[in-house]
């Protein structure tokens, strides 16, 4: 029987290592990823069904249905970057392999959501605003986020030394986080063509709000499934490369 934690530090250490030990992570993520995928499928189908039942908006007509996929994508591009930034911080401070793998795994997913947010926003904006694009604060800051994601992935790929790549990417990941409050408050700080916050302020009618909320949760759950899968892939990749290096060293000594 192990001695109970006698200090917060001991308790925190035990708590963190419970979830960040790679072997333990691989064990719980094995069922965690499919569970998140199942939740995403159920919520996604429910959200889409409610969305297609929703009546046309008196101003937007049926283009209101683009919001059901645009708003979740827009939330996710920021949420994923927040996850990347937290993982980057943990990687930089604790030099933990799993934190670095998590940050690396999140980047392509975040870039994909950002592309979706921009593209679906553009497809909504053309009939509503009469233009595919406008250089207003919200759209420009989200485009900047996409460029930060691309820069993060390019930086990682450009450095052969994984330790240096992890450190450099983590620093970039943390610096890029300054863009998150800029995106969020862009519609408040500047005169923006993009509408202001409407989901949390109750400005969205319930018949549209429910599909949006269900699809936001579906996207988050789907991201959870994909993120866990990609972190597991990173762990296998690093194990494979370590084993290959050992084999090469053994062959060289023989």
């Amino acid at each position: 029987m192990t001695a109970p934690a006698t200090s917060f530090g001991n308790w925190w250490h035990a708590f963190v290592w419970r979830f960040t030990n790679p072997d333990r992570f691989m064990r719980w993520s094995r069922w965690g990823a499919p569970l998140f995928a199942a939740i995403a499928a159920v919520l996604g189908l429910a959200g889409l069904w409610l969305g297609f039942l929703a009546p046309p908006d008196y101003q937007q007509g049926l283009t209101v249905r683009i919001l059901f996929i645009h708003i979740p994508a827009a939330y996710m591009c920021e949420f994923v970057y927040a996850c990347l930034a937290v993982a980057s911080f943990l990687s930089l401070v604790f030099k933990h392999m799993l934190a670095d793998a998590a940050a690396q795994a999140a980047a392509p997913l975040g870039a994909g959501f950002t592309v979706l947010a921009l593209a679906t926003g553009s497809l909504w904006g053309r009939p509503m605003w009469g233009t595919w694009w406008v250089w207003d604060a919200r759209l420009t800051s989200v485009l900047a986020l996409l460029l930060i994601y691309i820069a993060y992935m390019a930086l990682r790929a450009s450095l052969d030394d994984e330790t240096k790549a992890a450190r450099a990417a983590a620093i970039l990941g943390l610096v890029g986080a300054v863009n998150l409050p800029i995106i969020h408050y862009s519609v408040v700080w500047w005169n923006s063509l993009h509408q202001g916050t409407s989901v949390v302020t109750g400005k969205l009618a319930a018949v549209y709000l429910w599909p949006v909320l269900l699809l936001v949760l579906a996207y988050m759950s789907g991201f959870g499934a994909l993120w866990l899968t990609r972190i597991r892939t990173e762990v296998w990749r690093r194990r494979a490369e370590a084993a290959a290096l050992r084999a090469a060293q053994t062959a060289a000594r023989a």
Partner: protein
Amino acid sequence: MAPHDYSAYIWPAYGLTALVWVVFIASSLTAARRWKKRAAELSGKDERAGR
């Protein structure tokens, strides 16, 4: 006044969203299977070599 037909915007938006999710899922599962197999092969060689 006849209502506008916005299907030229709505369907591509949903189509692009579906495509991105398919790419996400396919690329994640393909890479996972490849590296899991590779890691298992190399770990097996490690064990046979007595490491």
